[in-house]
């Protein structure tokens, strides 16, 4: 079993405005990118992020060897139950995906 964080060289999550999160998975080569696309199936990604697969937008950007996911924030930024103002820690959930 290999973790996503052992294949990708950087996984970054950020806000894309107060209502969206966006997670970028950067790979160093086409081979790593293809492994990451295989491992990070949308069903599993939606599950670990606690969202519906229908809400998850997936972009496979082969030119950059980047797999990107965008999803509505689990809590709107800064509301009372939001835990992470900048959405920075969601990347960790994908880093731990194994396959």
């Amino acid at each position, binding site marked *: 079993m290999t973790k996503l964080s052992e294949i990708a060289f950087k996984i970054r999550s950020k806000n894309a405005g107060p209502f969206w999160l966006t997670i970028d998975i950067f790979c160093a080569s086409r081979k790593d990118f293809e492994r990451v696309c295989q491992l990070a199936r949308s069903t599993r990604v939606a599950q*670990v992020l606690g969202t519906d697969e229908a*809400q998850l937008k997936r972009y496979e950007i082969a030119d950059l060897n980047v797999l990107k996911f965008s999803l509505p924030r689990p809590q709107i930024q800064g509301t009372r139950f939001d835990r992470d103002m900048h959405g920075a820690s969601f990347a960790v959930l994908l880093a731990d995906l194994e396959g």
Partner: protein
Amino acid sequence: MTHSNVTKILIPSGALGLGYDRAALARGVAESPDLIAIDGGSTDSGPHYLGTGTSKYSRGSIKAEWRELMQARAAAQVPLVIGTAGTCGADSAVDWLVDITKEIADEEGMTLKVAVLKSGQSPTRMAKALVDGRIHPLEPVTELTSEVLESCTNIVALAGAEQIQRALETGADIVIAGRTTDTATIAALPLMRGCHAGGAWHGAKIGECGALATTSPNTGTIMISFDAQGFTVEPMGEAAQATPYTVSAHMLYENSNPHQLYEPGGHLDVTDAQYTALDDRSVRVTGSTWVPGAQYTVKLEGARSGGFQTVSLALVREPRYVENIREWVADIEAKCTAKAKERLNDPFTLELRLIGADATLGNLDKTATIGSEVGVLGIVTAPTEAISREVAKILNPYLLHHPLSEQEEMPTFAFPFSPAEMSRGEIYEFCLNHVLELTEPMEVFRLEVLEVGK
């Protein structure tokens, strides 16, 4: 357009208050830019700033950096434009930066024409626009009623290139704009001069975070040169390099769709963009497309009160309590909530987060482990300051002494502060993810020209 009509926009950094490499800024000024553009904020630090209409950065930092940019403007003899002044771009935040500008002009003996563009919207007028069917939701759709609009402490509309162009047409030395899209201050002049529209918006997106689209983000300063076919990116920091990879990857940054960017009046599409290294530090980009929309719309942002908050922090180090921390906080949450409901008739929420366990991700964190100590952060939110403090005070004895079982001596836990309760004051929430239809770009924006300085 001929080669001599190349329009060079100098961007000192990603935002005023973040700092930049002074040598890089000086190099940029020496290269004769046509305009200096800088962003003054964004929503990224949360709803407090729009809710209160205030700046995130210290007045001293803003004044120091703004003075240097005003000096750079004087040296370059070109307009200086700031968008989203004062973090949130509300009218009060614009006034705050205008005051700072007047002080600096007086201190420096500068005489300046300042165009002030305001983006603030009246809640009543927006409620009418909602009834008239001129406000439309964006994804993810949130419910919007007239009551929500009228409860906002600040609503702003995001100005685009057209409104910045009106401000530039006044012949102003400095443009201080309220809420603006991140790209508008950069794209406005190239578009006015007939540069390639797709290139103008794409180059503006690449430049809006300063040198973030290069190998040395901390150098801050970048020059984007626009022309009839596209644009060229050149960092001003000595060690910074723009590469086809750093430039093209920047479309991913804080952007939910890596191929498109929506602006008032249409959207940018970069699907067919071509990135070419001109040398080891500059990149040429062509092939981006601007797709005009059927209707001119501006995005709205609004913030309203989310109640008042009081927090407490207790530290648990005793191994048996650390080991059973979840059971301990669940018991406190239940008992304290019941007691507060018995004593108060007002609504509130109480939440205990475990710092050192899963405070960051909550239920999504399936692999959290607990170390030798845990911070227990109690968060009370209620409709008034007084109620939030009352509930937090009811929580206090539990965090101090609550036992895991009845058959044990009363334990005591560590509070780092006295009083243990810390008022966070009024909290705010973003409540608009919508666009407003306009009949013409200036319909809801106000432009004023001031003469400042001696």
